[in-house]
């Protein structure tokens, strides 16, 4: 399936073997055929897509193409897109046509990559299974009785099902990496601050980061080149020299020290996942890497810390959804206060409301020190663990998720059980470190298994190198679900 790698598509476009319009139409056709069973997309607008594709073709013809001009991409419905419905998977924004473009969207437009549509997601990015969306659950293309993971479930599913050659996602506690793992694709969360958050509807401001989702590491590297860059509209955006994230893909891995945190291979980890990850480690050894035993002792506290900090920030970020200036407003109310309370009760789903309540509680009078402040301190400890680890290794490796995809409805009654899915991914968000997931096998049910790499700050090129070298000698990432043609 490597004819659909981004570089292959770009070459075909450059060689006039295919036009952007033809590519777009081909993918739009697959979306029409497959979306009813996968539900990966919330909004598709063929007319708009084809207009963008035509513009890309004009650029190519005029010799003004960039590296990925004409290659289409799907966008998680968390990115405000001018003139497009932008719902964030919520009833609260089910009528919100964004009047401006997110910075990330602007970059893709500047790169000349037409949008295939807005992908489904857990409501306000809160979830690990894409079951909390107002627009219905997304199905895992490998087995539609199973979840694709979340919150970027739609993005992961559409790439896995080849409804799009690539997609954008966002990751706050694992929302790119975990669905990438469950859907057998590659996904990367960059170092915090590398990708602008302007226009990306905020969940937890100090943790959210946008990133690429595509079949391969090489694809992700090319997408990262488009997505990253300083944005003066985002105070947390970092000003750094422009990097080519594909520059080190072909470096040999000899001498690479791969840290294996013992806490990530402890109880709670599914046997099949453990076996697949072990096999991947062995593979890397043959490529010249050396495994190193490390400990991230405070990582077990990552989940409680996350479930204080993220809901706290979210409870405040979501206060703007009040029915006053945009979005859903309750149809009947007695007075202003009632309007607020009914709008928010009706507009938000159960998981979102739960997290707002937790957030409001941990910030409330008398609890700030015990919860929020304590969590920020432990966050420091978790980040320090990583700093220590990176003194003895170059990249950290482990499973992305403790298991493979689970059945729809299986965990949605117990929030805590759902939260435990993010066990291995959350620490990187808390520390602000880059992390990625790549496919490394399948379980007995034929469901994908993902392995996670976590790198030191700004070491995306190295992580992508490791992933790419692994993907050169394996083909997990090249597989696509059968029966989806």
């Amino acid at each position, binding site marked *: 399936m490597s004819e659909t790698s981004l570089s292959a598509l770009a070459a075909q476009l450059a060689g006039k073997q295919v036009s952007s319009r033809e590519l777009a139409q081909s993918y739009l056709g697959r979306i029409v055929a497959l979306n009813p069973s996968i539900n990966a997309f919330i909004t598709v607008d063929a007319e708009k897509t084809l207009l963008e594709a035509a513009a890309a073709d004009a650029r190519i013809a005029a010799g003004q193409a960039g590296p990925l001009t004409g290659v289409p991409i799907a966008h998680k419905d968390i990115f405000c897109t001018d003139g497009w419905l932008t719902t964030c998977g919520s009833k609260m924004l089910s009528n919100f046509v964004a*009047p401006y473009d997110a910075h990330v969207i602007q970059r893709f437009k500047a790169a000349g990559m037409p949008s295939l549509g807005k992908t489904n997601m857990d409501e306000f990015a809160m979830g690990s299974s894409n079951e909390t969306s107002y627009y219905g659950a997304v199905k895992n293309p490998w087995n539609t009785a199973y979840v694709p993971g979340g919150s970027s479930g739609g993005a992961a599913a559409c790439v896995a099902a080849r409804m799009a050659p690539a997609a954008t996602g966002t990751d706050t506690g694992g929302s790119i990496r975990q669905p990438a793992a469950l859907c057998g694709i590659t996904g990367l969360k960059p*170092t915090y601050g590398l990708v602008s958050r302007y226009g990306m509807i905020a969940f937890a401001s100090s943790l959210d980061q946008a990133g690429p989702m595509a079949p391969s590491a090489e694809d992700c590297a090319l997408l990262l080149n488009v997505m990253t860059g300083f944005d003066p509209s985002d105070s947390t955006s970092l000003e750094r020299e422009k990097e080519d994230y594909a520059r080190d893909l072909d470096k040999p891995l000899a001498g690479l020290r791969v840290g294996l945190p013992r806490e990530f291979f402890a109880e709670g980890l599914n046997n099949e996942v453990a076996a697949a990850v072990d096999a991947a480690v062995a593979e890397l050894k043959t490529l010249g890497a050396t495994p190193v035993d490390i400990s991230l002792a405070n990582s077990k506290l990552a989940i409680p810390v996350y479930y204080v900090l993220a809901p706290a920030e979210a409870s405040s970020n979501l206060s703007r959804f009040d029915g006053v200036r945009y979005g859903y407003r309750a149809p009947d109310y007695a007075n202003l206060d009632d*309007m607020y309370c009914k709008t*928010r009760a009706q507009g*938000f789903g159960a998981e979102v409301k739960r997290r707002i309540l*937790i957030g409001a509680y941990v910030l409330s009078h008398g609890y700030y020190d015990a919860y929020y402040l304590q969590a920020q301190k*432990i966050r420091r*400890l978790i980040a320090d663990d990583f700093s220590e680890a990176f003194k003895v290794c170059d990249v950290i490796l482990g499973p992305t998720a403790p298991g493979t995809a689970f059945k729809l409805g299986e965990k949605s009654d117990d929030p805590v059980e759902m939260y435990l899915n993010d066990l291995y991914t959350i620490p990187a968000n808390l520390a*602000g470190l880059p992390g990625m997931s790549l496919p490394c096998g399948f379980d007995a049910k034929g469901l994908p298994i993902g392995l996670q790499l976590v790198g030191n700050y700004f070491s995306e090129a190295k992580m992508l190198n490791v992933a790419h070298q692994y993907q050169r000698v394996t083909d997990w990432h090249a597989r696509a679900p059968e029966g989806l043609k």
Partner: protein
Amino acid sequence: MRQALSPDDVKRIARLARIETSDAEAQATQAQLNSIFDLIATMQAVDTRGVSPMAHAQEVYQRLRDDIVTETDRHAAFQAVAPAVENGLYLVPKVIE
């Protein structure tokens, strides 16, 4: 040992967050919230004396913008998505002071 949340606590917080919550809903949410708080409780016992809180990953300071006007009037576009607007004003149920 942390006190469990009562349904009254749930209603009080729901009030703070302006989310209408019936007694039945408060009951239902209460159990789930309490289990989440049990999860959170494990971090409270950790000794963090002398540890400075981490708000941001990098030690960076706030960038400053020049004091110039860069925005233009886009109220027509912004108000096209508003629930209730009149004479350029957003309308809400009457505010009583």
